[in-house]
């Protein structure tokens, strides 16, 4: 590779921003599922929302190196905001979604200053603390949130005034999928921009990033705010498509599950959340149908095996398995978007 550092960086960004064939396949399948899997729209809706949520965590964990145990704070805030907005103001989904996203982003902006205060362990604690505090507020403000009984009476209007939310979850899935796709496009654009590159620099070596003139704190605040907004959007989608919000949306297990999904799917390439959410939810659904009482055992076992086998990314593992089944040599691991 020749040229000035600027040229190298530009070339690198251009390379990583190109769409790979697998990405087209992934989104074609996701949209194809609208017609191909009509009886599974409900679980698909849950998967795509979880995937969006996981992607939002990937933005801060995979790209900026901020580990969070309280990302559900924003998910839950977005969910409650959208739910309460639908009850008290109007039931138009898009208006509610946009406002919930902005509000969560604002909350992310405010709390980002706390998160900047420390490094890894301290950040885990701070994010966890923020989520716990919000959870308790939601629990106590019964008049607004319904407390532990959950927020009831959410009635959503049709999407764009045309598509009613149906019992089969078709509208819900299409709505969530389109929103997730749009947000994904935006995130993808952001992570392959110079801004995204600077984030990765901060993740890999904050001290050096500061030394070469990257405004570390400002960048971290920006990405944390963005991730919070994304998580809020995911929460709002859940509240709108299920028309119910309970304290679970903000609970610790949400934050932990989503972290787990990123562990399964891999961080730092945006698709990790999608892969993790699909694997986790499908496994949960299939195994808990076989054995409703003991499915957690099998999930746990599978997770342990996954980690033992190695932490390479899901897509690579699948490729290896595929090659092995066809009797071809194993492919080398490849990154998709903006990995190292």
């Amino acid at each position, binding site marked *: 590779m020749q040229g000035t550092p600027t040229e190298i960086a530009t070339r690198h960004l251009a390379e990583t921003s190109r769409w790979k064939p697998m990405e087209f396949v992934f989104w074609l399948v996701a949209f194809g599922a609208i017609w191909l899997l009509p*009886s599974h729209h409900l679980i698909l809706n849950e998967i795509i929302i979880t995937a969006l949520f996981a992607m939002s965590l990937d933005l801060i964990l995979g790209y900026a190196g901020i580990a969070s145990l309280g990302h559900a704070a924003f998910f839950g805030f977005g969910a409650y905001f959208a739910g309460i907005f639908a009850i008290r103001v109007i039931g138009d989904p898009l208006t509610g979604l946009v406002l919930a996203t902005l509000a969560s982003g604002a909350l992310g902006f405010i709390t980002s200053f706390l998160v900047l205060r420390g490094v890894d362990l301290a950040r885990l604690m701070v994010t966890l603390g923020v989520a716990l505090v919000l959870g308790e507020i939601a629990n106590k403000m019964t008049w607004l949130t319904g*407390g532990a009984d959950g927020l009831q009476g959410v009635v959503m209007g049709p999407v764009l005034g045309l598509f009613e939310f149906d019992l089969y*979850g078709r509208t819900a899935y299409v709505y969530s999928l389109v929103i997730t796709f749009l947000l994904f496009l935006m995130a993808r654009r952001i992570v392959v921009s110079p801004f995204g590159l600077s984030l990765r620099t901060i993740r890999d070596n904050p001290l050096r990033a500061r030394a070469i003139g990257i405004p570390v704190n400002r960048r971290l605040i920006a990405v944390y705010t963005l991730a919070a907004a994304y998580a809020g959007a995911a929460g709002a989608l*859940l509240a709108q498509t299920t*028309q*119910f919000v*309970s304290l679970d949306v903000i609970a610790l297990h949400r934050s932990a599950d989503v972290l787990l999904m990123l562990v399964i799917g891999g961080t730092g390439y945006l698709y990790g959340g999608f892969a993790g959410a699909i694997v986790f939810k499908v496994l949960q659904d299939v195994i808990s149908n076989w054995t*409703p009482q003991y499915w957690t055992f099998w999930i746990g076992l599978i997770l342990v095996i996954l980690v033992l086998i190695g932490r390479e990314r899901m897509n690579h593992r699948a490729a290896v*398995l595929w090659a092995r089944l066809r*009797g071809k040599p194993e492919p080398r691991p490849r990154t998709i978007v903006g990995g190292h």
Partner: protein
Amino acid sequence: MSRRNFLKAGAVAMGLALMAGTALAQDAIKIGLILPMTGPFTSTGKQIAAAAQLYMAQKGTTIAGKKVELIIKDDTGVADVTRRIAQELIVNDKVTAIAGFGLTPLALATAPLATQAKTPMVVMSAATGIITERSPFIVRTSQVVPQIAGPFGEWVAKQGMKRVVTVVTDYGPGHDVEKWFSDVFKANGGQVENLRVPLANPDFSPFLQKVADSKPDALLVFVPSGVGSQFMKQFVERGLDKSGIKLIGTGDVTDDDILNTIGDVALGVVTAHHYSAAHDSPENKAFVEAFKKANNGLRPNFMAVGGYDGMHALYEGLKKTNGAGGEALVEAMKGLSWMSPRGPMSIDKNTRDIIQNVYIRKVEKVGGELFNIEFATIPNVKDPSKAK
């Protein structure tokens, strides 16, 4: 078999298993049972599922020439999952009725679906008063909190107690217990102080300290089934059992499922509830014996009896409608009355809620095991929050 072939065979087997799942008999009456089978409320799910299966094993699986099928699903106690599973059962499995619902939020999240899809919904556990008002398709076979707490307030006042502190879990049913017990107790001349503990990860010690300081005649406690043992242990650790403060409560604290593991610290606790495994009737003796036999000696608790009676209501309703569901099934279940293991019970014609006896019991040791022994009965109690 080489590793490659083994993998291939595995993939094929998995595919077949998935297909078999979808190829179910068409002409069957399916009942979707949604319960928390994992997570903190596992015992609720386990008891209800076991009781429902027992009922079907005893009464057969054919109604009006159709096969009855039970589909048990785990919602992990998370409300949006409950709702999604209910929705899937309704649209994909075409169930005739949905049942279960371990906690109030789970039932409330699903209620609008029951109305929208016109699917009868039998609540076998959740106990907040408002649930049956949230959909005309809901029938309840468990208990209504005010039904237990209200009459108990009156009974406690009649025993000459003047000052009671209440400690309840901070959620729907807890608020119901607090309100109904306090209102009735005050109306009968008593004084009440109210304390609330959080639902998640409760630590009772600061609350117990407050109680110890205020020295009331009795401490009334309400916690979800399963948390009772923690409470009792902390009650004794703090020495409150020796301070002359009587421990009273709704039967959730001395849940039959956990009573033996609480141990002797529970002796003498007075509670009000609708079911005790020690209830003295031939129906109950047969039920307890069959339940234990089918479940490795597990003692049935009030959750189990809710599930058992829920299946009974569905079976009797389905017999009347010849296997049809929808509004007809709800109509058929209204007004049913029968002799349950818990005693006589019926479904209120107007509110679709349960009418049953409330028993005052005391924990005693019988044959080396702890039981709630009933010593007073308040007959045929309706839900006072609706009986206006």
